[in-house]
C-alpha cells in the first residue's frame, strides 16, 4: 500500500478517538459546563466496555449482540460519570475545574483498578474483530475501520445538526449563553444541563473503548487515553465549538499525533533516535499555537458560550 495513504488512514483512525472526545465536550460546553473530566470519562468508558465484554465472554450470545451490549455499557459508564459531574456542578454548584480534575484523577485510577481486576485481560479480546465488523481482515491499513469508526462521524454530524437546526439545540445553546434568560422564558435549565452533560460524557466514553479495542487492540492502551483526552478538550477550541469542524480537527490531530512513527519513513529520512520525542511533542505545540492564534483573532462568532464555567444559581442576582 502507498505509504502516504497508510499514514493518512492510520491518522484518521486515531483521530476518531479525538472526535468522540471533542464531540462530547462540545455538547457539554455548549450548555455552559467546562468538563475537564473528559480524560477520566474516556478511560472509564474503556473500562466499562471491557468489563461488559469480559462478563459476556462465553455467554453464548450472538457476537453482534455482545458488541452492542459492550457499546451500550461504555455509553452507560460515561453517562454515570457525567451524572456525577452534573450532580456536583449543577445541583451542588461546585467549581467546575476542580470537579473535572477530580473526575480525571478518579477515572484514570478506577480504570486501572478495573482492568487489573479482569482475570485475564486477553480473554475478551476475541470480540475485537466484531468491533471491526465491515472490514474484518487484519492486514490492511483499513483494519481499524469498523462500526465504531463510522459511528463517530455519524455522531458528530448528528450533533452538529441538533445543535444548530433543532429547537432542542436552540434551547441548549440558550442555556449555555445565558441561563437566567433561558430560565425566564421557561426552559428547564437543570434538565438541559444534566441531559447535555450526561449525553456528552457518554459520547466521549465511546472514544475510550474505540481506542482500547479498535485502534490499539490492547487493554494496556488505557494508559495513553489521558493525554488523548486533554487533546480532545483542546480540539474544541480548534473546532470553534462546532462538531462538524472537529472532524477536520481530529484528522489533523491524528496526523500530528502519529507523525513520529510515520513521517521519517514517508520522507525517507533517517532521523536519530532522539528526534522521536521531539516529533511526539508536535500535537501539543500545535495545540498551543492554535490557542494563541484563536485568542489573537477573537472573532465575535467564534467565542465560547458566554456562561462557560460559571455555575447558575437562580436566586443569585
Amino acid at each position: 500500500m502507498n505509504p502516504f495513504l497508510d499514514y493518512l488512514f492510520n491518522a484518521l483512525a486515531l483521530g476518531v478517538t479525538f472526535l468522540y472526545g471533542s464531540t462530547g465536550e462540545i455538547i457539554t460546553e455548549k450548555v455552559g459546563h467546562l468538563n475537564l473530566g473528559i480524560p477520566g470519562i474516556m478511560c472509564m468508558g474503556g473500562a466499562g466496555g471491557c468489563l461488559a465484554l469480559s462478563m459476556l465472554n462465553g455467554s453464548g450470545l450472538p457476537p453482534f449482540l455482545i458488541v452492542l451490549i459492550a457499546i451500550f455499557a461504555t455509553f452507560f459508564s460515561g453517562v454515570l460519570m457525567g451524572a456525577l459531574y452534573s450532580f456536583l456542578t449543577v445541583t451542588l454548584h461546585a467549581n467546575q475545574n476542580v470537579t473535572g480534575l477530580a473526575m480525571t484523577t478518579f477515572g484514570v485510577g478506577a480504570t486501572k483498578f478495573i482492568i487489573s481486576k479482569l482475570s485475564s485481560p486477553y480473554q475478551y479480546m476475541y470480540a475485537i474483530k466484531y468491533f471491526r465488523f465491515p472490514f474484518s481482515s487484519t492486514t490492511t491499513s483499513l483494519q481499524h475501520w469498523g462500526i465504531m469508526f463510522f459511528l463517530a462521524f455519524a455522531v458528530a454530524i448528528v450533533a452538529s445538526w441538533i445543535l444548530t437546526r433543532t429547537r432542542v439545540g436552540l434551547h441548549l445553546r440558550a442555556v449555555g449563553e445565558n441561563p437566567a434568560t433561558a430560565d425566564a422564558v421557561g426552559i428547564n435549565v437543570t434538565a438541559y444541563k444534566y441531559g447535555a452533560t450526561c449525553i456528552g460524557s457518554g459520547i466521549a466514553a465511546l472514544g475510550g473503548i474505540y481506542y482500547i479495542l479498535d485502534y490499539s487492540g490492547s487493554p494496556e492502551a488505557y494508559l495513553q487515553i489521558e493525554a488523548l483526552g486533554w487533546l480532545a478538550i483542546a480540539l474544541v477550541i480548534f473546532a470553534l465549538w462546532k462538531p462538524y469542524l472537529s472532524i477536520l480537527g481530529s484528522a489533523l490531530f491524528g496526523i500530528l499525533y502519529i507523525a513520529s512513527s510515520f513521517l521519517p519513513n514517508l520522507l525517507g529520512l533517517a532521523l536519530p533516535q532522539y528526534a522521536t520525542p521531539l516529533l511526539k511533542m508536535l500535537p501539543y505545540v500545535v495545540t498551543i499555537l492554535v490557542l494563541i492564534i484563536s485568542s489573537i483573532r477573537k472573532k465575535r462568532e467564534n467565542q465560547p458560550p458566554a456562561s462557560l464555567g460559571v455555575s447558575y444559581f437562580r436566586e443569585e442576582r
Partner: protein
Amino acid sequence: MHKPEKQSREPLFHVVKRDLIAPQKALLIRVIAVLAAFMLCAVMAYFFIGANPFKFIKTVFSGAFGTTHRVWTLAKDSAILLCLALAVTPAFRMRFWNLGADGQALIGALAAILCASGLGGKIPNGVLLIIMLLASVLAGAVWGVLPAIFKAIWGTNESLFTLMMNYAATHFVTFSLLKWLVSDGSTTLSELPFGHLPKVYNEEFLVVLLSVVLTVLIFIYLNYTKQGYEVSVVGESENTARYIGINVKKVTIRTMLISGAVCGFTGFLIVSAFDHSITAETIGGLGFTAIMVSWLAKFNPLVMIVTSTLIAFLERGGAQISTDFNVSSAFPSLVVGLILFFVIGCEFFINYRIKFRTSKKGGNDE
C-alpha cells in the same frame, strides 16, 4: 380559593445562599464529609477486595504511621505535595488556572539533573548545588511564565496552555535523556553521584524543614505584602484592579513567574534530595493532586500543611492496602478520588442552606 392552592405548590425545600458561616461549623461539615467518604471507602473495600472494614482502617493507618520509616516517607510525600500546592496557590488566588505544575516541576528537575551531570565532579558540591538550584528555579519560571505572557496580552486560555506544556515537558525530558544524559540509547539514567543535598538527621528532614519555611514565606507574601494584595484584587475582579491602578498584565506575569519558580524549586528538591536521576514520570501527576490540596485549603498556605498531610496519608494508606490485599496499585487514587468528591460536594452545605417548607430553620449538615 387561591390561598390553599398556592401553598400546595410550594416545594418541599428550597436552597438559600448563606451570608457567613461560623468557621467551626464549616470545619465540622468538612470533617464529617471526609469521615463519611472514608467510611464509604471501607464499605467498598469490603465488597470489592473482601477487606474487613476494621482491618481496612488498621491497614491504612499502619501504612502511613506503622514504622518510623513510614512516618518519614509520609512526611516527605506531604512536604513535596505541600511545595507544589504552595506553588500553584498565588496563581489560583489570581484566578489563573495553572494546571501545569507537573511540567514546571519536571523542567526544574531536568535543569538540576543537566547541571549535575555536566558540572558534577568539576566543582565543589556546594557550588554545584547553588547552580542546580538557580537553574531549576529559572527553568520552572520560564515554563510557567510563557502561558502567562500570552494570557496577559491576548487572553489565551491558560488552563489548556499549561496542560499542553506538561506534555511538552515530558517529551522534552525523554529527548534530553536520549540526546545528552544517557549514551547507550536507553532512557534510564542511573543515579548521579553528584549534587546531593546534605543529609541533616536523615534524607527527609531537610526537605520537610524547607517546605515549612516555604509555607511561611508564601503565607507572608500573600497576606502581608503589597504584591500579595494585588494578586487578591486581580483575582476578585480585574476591573476593580484596573480601576485602582493595578497593572493587571504585570501582576499576571509576575505571579506566574513566582508560581513556576516554586514549582522548579520543588523539582530541584525531588532530584537533589531523593531521586538523583530523572524519568518522564518523575512528577507523575503530583501537580494535579497539588491543585486539590491547594483548593481544599481554600488557598490558605497554613491550612495546606493539614490538607497535604491528609492526601499523602490517604495515598500511603491506600498503597499499603494495595500491597497487603494484593490489588492494583491504582487503589490509592480511587480512595483519594472518592474523598475529593465528598469534599467538593460538602462545599455546597457550607455556601448554601436548605430551607424546608415547614419553616423549620437551621443548618442541614450532610
